[in-house]
C-alpha cells in the first residue's frame, strides 16, 4: 500500500518591501498608460445612438467589453518585460472611460519597440497566478457566465437591421470552453516609433471594432446573431477581433 505524504516542513515566509535596498532604485522604473480607443471608420464608437454598417446590415452597439491580459513590453534589445501576471487582467468597457486607460506601474525605463497582450484569459494558466483575483472585476462587468467557471473574453451586443430583419438584437459572448474550444488570443503590435519610456509614458491602442464582422472572416448578423458557445463561429469572432488592434506609437 502506497501512502502519499505531503510533507511540509515549517514554512518560513520572508517578505520584503519593493523599495528595500536590495531592489533596483525607483528612478529606473516608471508608470505607463495604455489608452484604448474603440473606433469605427476612424471615429470613437458611440453606444446606443450611432448607426454603423457592415457589408450587409446596419447596427447599433449597446455593449462592448473585452478582457486584456498578460501584457508584455518588448525592448529594443529583444528583452521582454512581462507585467506581473496576477496584476495583468483588465476589462476594457466602452461605457466606462476610466476602464479604457490601463495604468501599469514599475515598468523598467528603456526603449521599447513592441507590445504584446492577451485577449481573454489564457486557460493554460488557469487558475494559477492569481487569475481568480480577477473574478470580482469580471463579475462587475458581467464577464462571467453563471453556469460555467470561465470568463467572457468579449461581450459585444446591440441591435441590427438587415434586408429581412428590423431591430433585432445581436449578442456575441466569446470565451474558452474546455481544451477543445480555446479562444484566447495574443496580439503583438510593433511600434512605428521606438517608445523611449521616461519621455513618453502613454501608448494609444485602437480597436477598429468593425473588424469583428469583417477581417479574416466575414460574419453576417443575419446569418447568425447570437454567438456564444459555438465551436464554429466563436473562433472566427475572436480571430477577427484580434486583428482589430493597431497603434500609432
Amino acid at each position: 500500500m502506497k501512502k502519499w505524504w505531503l510533507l511540509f516542513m515549517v514554512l518560513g515566509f520572508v517578505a520584503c518591501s519593493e523599495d528595500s535596498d536590495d531592489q533596483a532604485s525607483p528612478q529606473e522604473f516608471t508608470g505607463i498608460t495604455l489608452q484604448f480607443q474603440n473606433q469605427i471608420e476612424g471615429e470613437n464608437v458611440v453606444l446606443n445612438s450611432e448607426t454603423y454598417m457592415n457589408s450587409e446590415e446596419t447596427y447599433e452597439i449597446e455593449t462592448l467589453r473585452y478582457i486584456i491580459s498578460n501584457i508584455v513590453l518588448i525592448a529594443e534589445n529583444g528583452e521582454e518585460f512581462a507585467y506581473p501576471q496576477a496584476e495583468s487582467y483588465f476589462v476594457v468597457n466602452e461605457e466606462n472611460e476610466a476602464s479604457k486607460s490601463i495604468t501599469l506601474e514599475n515598468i523598467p525605463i528603456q526603449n521599447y519597440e513592441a507590445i504584446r497582450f492577451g485577449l481573454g484569459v489564457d486557460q493554460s494558466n488557469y487558475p494559477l497566478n492569481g487569475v481568480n483575483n480577477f473574478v470580482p472585476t469580471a463579475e462587475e462587468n458581467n464577464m462571467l457566465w453563471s453556469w460555467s467557471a470561465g470568463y467572457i473574453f468579449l461581450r459585444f451586443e446591440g441591435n441590427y437591421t438587415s434586408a429581412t430583419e428590423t431591430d433585432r438584437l445581436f449578442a456575441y459572448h466569446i470565451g474558452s470552453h474546455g481544451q477543445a474550444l480555446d479562444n484566447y488570443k495574443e496580439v503583438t503590435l510593433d511600434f512605428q516609433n521606438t517608445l523611449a519610456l521616461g519621455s513618453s509614458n502613454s501608448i494609444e491602442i485602437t480597436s477598429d471594432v468593425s473588424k469583428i464582422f469583417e477581417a479574416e472572416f466575414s460574419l453576417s448578423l443575419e446569418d447568425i446573431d447570437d454567438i456564444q458557445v459555438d465551436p464554429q463561429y466563436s473562433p472566427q469572432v475572436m480571430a477577427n477581433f484580434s486583428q482589430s488592434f493597431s497603434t500609432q506609437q
Partner: protein
Amino acid sequence: MRLSFFLLLSLWLVSCSEEDADSGYEAIVENDTLSIEIPDYFPEVTYNFEANPPTEKGFELGKKLFYDGKLSSDGVVSCGFCHIQDFSFTHHTHIVSHGVNGALGTRNAQPLQNMIFMNEFTWDGAAESLDAQPIIPITAEVEMNESFSNIIDKLQADEEYPQLFAEAFENGEVNTDNMLKAISQFLVMMVSADSKYDKILKNEGSQFTDEEEAGKVLFDQKCATCHAGVLFTDQSYRNNGLPIDPEYDDEGRSRVTGLQADKYKFKVPSLRNIQITYPYMHDGRFQTLAQVLDHYDSGMVVTENLDPVFQQNENLGISLTEDEKQKIIAFLETLTDDNFLLDDRFAEF
C-alpha cells in the same frame, strides 16, 4: 508497503509586500502542511498540490467558508447546505439543488469525494479546475446568488476572517484567489477510500458475501465499461438513454462545448458511496438503485447521441434479471465508506 514522498521542503519563499516598508520583514508563520493517505491502487492525482498545498490553517479556513452562509446573498445557503457530509456531501432526498429564497436548480447536487483525481467538475464539466468550480454555485442565481465583490467585502469586515486568511496564506490577503484556494484545501482532503470494497483490496480481513461477490462479477461484466476503475467512473460524458424531461430539457455537455455531438451527455458519476447519495441521475429522477437498474434494463429510450455501448444487442440497454439487480446492488453497497461519512475533520459541528 511502499511510501512515496511528495516532499515540498522547507521553502523559504521571498515575497514582496508593500505593507512592511518599515520593518522589511514580517513575522514567520507556522502552518503545517497536511498529509493525505491514498491507497496504491488509486489513480494518479490530477490536482496541482504544488500550486496550492493544503495546510492546517488553510483547511480550517476552507471548512469555515464551506459552511458559512455569508457566501450567499441571503446569508443562509452555504456550500454545506446542499453538500451534506452524512450523504457523501449530497443534498439528501432533494431532486435538484435548492438555492436562496427557495429557488430551485436544475440538477442534482453531486457528492464531494475524491476530487483530487477528477479532470473536470460538475455534471457537464463546466469547471476545468477544482479551484474555479465554486464560482458556479456561488454566483448562480438559483444557487447562492452572490457576487465575489460582496463576499470579499463581507469577509474583510468580519471579526475573524482577516486573521484566518493572514494565518493561512503567505500574502495574508482576503481575496478571491485565497478564498478559493482555502475551499480547495478543505475539499482536497475528502478522499473516500475506506469502504468494505477497499478493505478487501487492502487485505484487511474483510470478505465479500457470496451475493456481493456475484454482484461484483456482474458489475464488471455489465457496468464497468463506463463505471471503470476504482473510482467507478471513466470520467467520460455519455448519454445513458434517459427520456428527456421537458421541464428542464437539459442538453448536458453540449452547453459547455457547443457541440451537437455532446447533446444530452452527462459525466459518468463515481459510484463510491452511491447507496446513500440518492436521488440519482443528473436531475435526481430516480429514488432508488433498483429504479436506476430498471432504467438500464428496460427504461432506456433512443435520443440524440445515445451511447453506442447501450446499443450492442437487439434490446436497448443492459439486460438484467431481478436476481442480478439485487446482486449488483449488494456489491454497490460495499462502496459505502462510513469512516469518510463520519470523519470529524469534515463535520460542520
